[in-house]
């Protein structure tokens, strides 16, 4: 068993490349899906019913496709529509599409619960439209949504593991290739699990830290 772990250790460089890809995919994915979520949340809270209906349909569709299937669709089916992405980009696109719907739903839910008073004050002082959203509403929504955004971020990190099926060289892919070459499944996968755990711990520590900052701003 100790020998198995030393084999994994010898192949640490491959594992670290996988880790780097997972970190890169996750952070870019979280950032982009949050950005799209911000736009979709505004559309979901719009006064225009048509905009709300269309966005609602889109967001629900995004959240209802199984992630694995979505990854297959982006990688195998989009090329037949003329959209060709490499493995890595396909993986990122799948991550962003899948999570943007969740992020939008998180932000919309928090926004709907936001006390009316400070938004009223924004309107009374001459804020409207995008200015009102970005300067008065969104900062409060994000501050209140931090724990939920943190949760979703952990979900994103774990979802990236699925991307090995479209040959994205991420952490699970790296662990799997080490185990299939040397047949050390336990050591290889446990090492990967430890690294996933470390990433999630970083997110949780970050959430706790930002929560402390957010506390006085509510």
């Amino acid at each position, binding site marked *: 068993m100790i020998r198995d772990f030393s084999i994994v250790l010898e192949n640490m460089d491959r594992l670290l490349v996988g880790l780097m890809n997972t970190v890169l995919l996750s952070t870019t994915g979280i950032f982009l899906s949050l950005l799209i979520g911000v736009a979709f949340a505004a559309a979901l809270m719009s006064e225009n019913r048509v905009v709300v209906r269309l966005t609602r349909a889109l967001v629900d569709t995004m959240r209802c496709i199984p992630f694995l299937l979505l990854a297959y669709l982006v990688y195998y089916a989009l090329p037949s529509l003329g959209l060709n992405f490499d493995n890595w980009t396909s993986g990122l696109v799948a991550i962003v599409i899948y999570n943007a719907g969740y992020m939008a739903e998180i932000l919309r839910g928090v926004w709907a619960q936001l006390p009316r*008073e*400070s938004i*009223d*004050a*924004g*309107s*009374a*002082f*001459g*804020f*409207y*439209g995008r*200015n009102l959203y970005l*300067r*008065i509403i969104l*900062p*409060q929504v994000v*501050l209140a949504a931090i724990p939920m955004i943190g949760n979703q971020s952990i979900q994103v990190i774990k979802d990236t593991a699925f991307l090995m099926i479209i040959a994205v060289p991420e952490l699970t892919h790296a662990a799997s290739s080490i185990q299939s070459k040397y047949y050390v499944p336990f050591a290889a996968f446990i090492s990967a699990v430890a690294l996933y755990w470390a990433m999630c711990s970083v997110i949780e520590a970050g959430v706790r830290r930002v929560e402390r900052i957010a506390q*006085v*701003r*509510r």
Partner: protein
Amino acid sequence: MTDAADRDEDGLPTLRVLGLTKTFGDNIVLDGVSLSVSKGKTVCVLGPSGSGKSTLLRCVNWLERPDQGAIFLGSTRVGFRNAGGGILMTARELAQVRARMGMVFQHFNLWPHLTVLENIIEAPMHVLRRPREKAVHTAETLLKRVGLIDKRNDFPSRLSGGQKQRVGIARALAMEPEVLLFDEPTSALDPETVGEVIAVMRTLSAEGRTMLVVTHEMQFARETANEIVFIDRGRIVEKSAPQLFFASPQTERARQFLQRYSVR
């Protein structure tokens, strides 16, 4: 003071409310309310709870959209592009009119994600597009005035109610508004902090700010207002000078109201 001195160059009162009616479902909250506030004057709106006072104020800047009636800020018809009504303002135009009125809320409605100073410079910078330096300078002057300059970098959650409301007043003043709207500014305060807010409001009135004040502070109304408007069940019941209103109210309802509040 002559009558002409109360009016601006156009010869119009700063704020006019004409035949304002507002219903929520079957409930008629305001029924044909008319009043005006001349430049430099303080008008206090009194009345029992639920009489429609707050709704009146929220209709003035269209936070609630009136069902009928007209509101004029100077010569601008609030909410409509034309004085006769009919062509609605765009969101942008309405926002521009709202920015000309300063509002002070019962529950302060400060922006919790911003510091005291940021609360005051936010609208001057991002609505009026003032340069930051100028906005900060104005804000600091105002904070000194309301005695809160040492709290400039604190968040609202760290302030007492009275302090929050003084920030709320400074925030409204920073817009250099044509009229100040006060919506029961002391009703949510602990009794011991009411005084500090009232003191600020007195000096504002004394220096000739144009103010429409919904309040339950009878002493403030008696000593500061140029005119008292007494509202009950959505209608103006009495409109008179404070000396007259408090000494010899003309209606039974006003008498009852004053009895209840002077006992307090």
